[in-house]
């Protein structure tokens, strides 16, 4: 049983999880204030015969306070969030040394195109593998997401990575895995009957393992 | 006597407005096909003419010119919403 976000597997996980925790604390405090307040009021001011309610139409000062505090908190939260948002999603944030892959989604599979030995996409030694994403640990990787038919969403929970693949659009997403191992890709956008089984495996290799895998693929003849 | 009655204002000359609309329509067609202006200028001029014509219809035929602001407001409110939608979605392509 897991009660928290999945284990961290990429560089995004750090800031996102911290931000999550920060929001959890802010909202937690608010939640406690509201619920404790409600329970207190319910008990303390329960109706009894002979009592009369305090006749007031409100207090401007109180209202200004509870308008200003959320406003300031929200603006601050927005500014902090925006910093990381730009870092993660903006096209210009993709590191120049990123290793490029192509991910093509179709009902109901992921086709990953690898650059082959020359490490460049769009050349003859590219090869495509169904439902397997092999990447190198600690290597910034950029994927170009495309879709054949409907909208799919590329989702790797451990990497805190989610990006829709939209037909007619070429969307770049990048990530930097920090742990070797095996993960799963799920499709997070309803894409038809087989939405639930649109699953792929992710393998995070050390550089040597990856090279070996590429060589093996090349030997086996690229599909 | 809070309500200005429709009859309190002098009727605009509707035939004159009709003439304006007519002339501007011809101007539009000429502009689109005959006159030697650049593509962008043509676009802007055509849009100005269209908005002008639309304003004439709204102000005089729908007598918005003679209504109170609170009634004009009903017609004005949707326009910024429309503008927000269109500009936002177009901006997506621009960045």
């Amino acid at each position, binding site marked *: 049983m897991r009660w928290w976000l999945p284990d961290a597997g990429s560089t995004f996980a750090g800031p996102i999880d911290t931000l999550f925790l920060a929001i959890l604390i802010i909202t937690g405090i608010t939640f406690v204030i509201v619920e404790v307040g409600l329970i207190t009021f319910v008990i303390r001011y329960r109706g009894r015969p002979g009592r009369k309610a305090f006749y007031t139409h409100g207090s401007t000062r109180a209202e200004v306070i509870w308008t200003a505090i959320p406003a300031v908190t929200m603006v601050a939260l927005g500014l902090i969030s925006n910093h990381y948002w730009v870092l993660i999603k903006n096209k210009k944030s993709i590191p120049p040394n990123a290793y490029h892959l192509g991910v093509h989604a179709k009902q109901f599979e992921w086709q990953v195109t690898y650059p082959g030995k020359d490490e460049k996409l769009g050349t003859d030694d590219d090869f495509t593998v169904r439902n397997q994403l092999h990447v190198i640990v600690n290597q910034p990787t950029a994927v170009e997401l495309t879709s054949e038919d409907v909208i799919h969403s590329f989702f790797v929970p451990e990497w805190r990575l989610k990006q829709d693949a939209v037909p007619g659009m070429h969307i770049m997403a990048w990530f930097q895995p920090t742990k070797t191992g095996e993960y799963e890709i799920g499709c997070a956008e309803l894409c038809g009957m087989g939405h639930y089984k649109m699953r792929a495996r992710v393998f995070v290799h050390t550089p040597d393992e990856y090279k070996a895998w590429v060589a093996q693929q090349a030997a086996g003849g690229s599909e | 006597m809070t309500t200005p009655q429709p009859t309190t204002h002098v009727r605009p000359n509707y*035939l004159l407005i*009709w003439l304006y609309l007519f002339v501007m329509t011809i101007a539009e067609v000429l502009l689109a096909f005959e006159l030697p202006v650049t593509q962008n200028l043509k*676009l802007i001029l055509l849009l100005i003419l269209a908005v002008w014509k639309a304003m004439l219809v709204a102000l005089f035929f729908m007598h918005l010119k003679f209504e109170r602001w609170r009634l004009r407001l009903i*017609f004005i409110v949707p*326009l910024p919403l*429309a503008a927000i*939608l269109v500009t936002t*979605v177009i901006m997506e*392509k621009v960045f």
Partner: protein
Amino acid sequence: MTHATQTLDQMRPPFPAEVGSGVYSNKLGMWVFLASDVMFFTALIGSYIILRFGMPSAWARPGAVLNVPLTGVNTFLLICSSVSMVKAYAAIADGKKYFLRKVPGKTLQDGGLKFWLLVTIICGAGFVGVQLVEYIKLVGEGFTPAGYREGSLLAEHALADPVKYGAGVAGMYGSTFFTMTGFHGFHVTCGVISMLYLYFTKVLPEKYSAQDYRGIEVIGLYWHFVDLVWIILFTIVYLI
């Protein structure tokens, strides 16, 4: 005047004004509906603008596919109908004679109303008729909501001159053209039907007066709005 009767007045409000906005309810309701119709056309026209901005290649040149002179005449018809509508409204609202002959035994303004409303209906029906003819012609030439029909005249033209006929984006051209003009035509048709209904149930029996012309003013607002939309559509669909 006692207090009770005053409140009754507000319950069954005398024309033309009502408490609150200072505008009687039918007119206020029509304006609110028009605001909502603005948003409806925003969805259609806005999509057209957005799609056209995002196009990979240029749209067909103005006049290449669509018959602009015919539509110009049609625009003229609709503008005329708008003028006649406002004349009809003025005739009844002012109780003034315009330049129609006095009919013995009849009040002057009714004569004006009947004439001008009939002109409006005829022009409106004419507009719909011309649009139908245009549609039939276009479809005959091969212009359909899905683009240029294969093997049709237009498809051949597009092959010969892809730039002029916007061959790459013919599908979008057809989609937006037929949806926008079609729904505008639908609005015009609804207007003509409502005016015919008013004509036979209210205008011919002379139910309207300088004191109560609500139906005419309200349908007039709708009609001018439809005209206004067409002015925009004509420019952005046919001329740009």
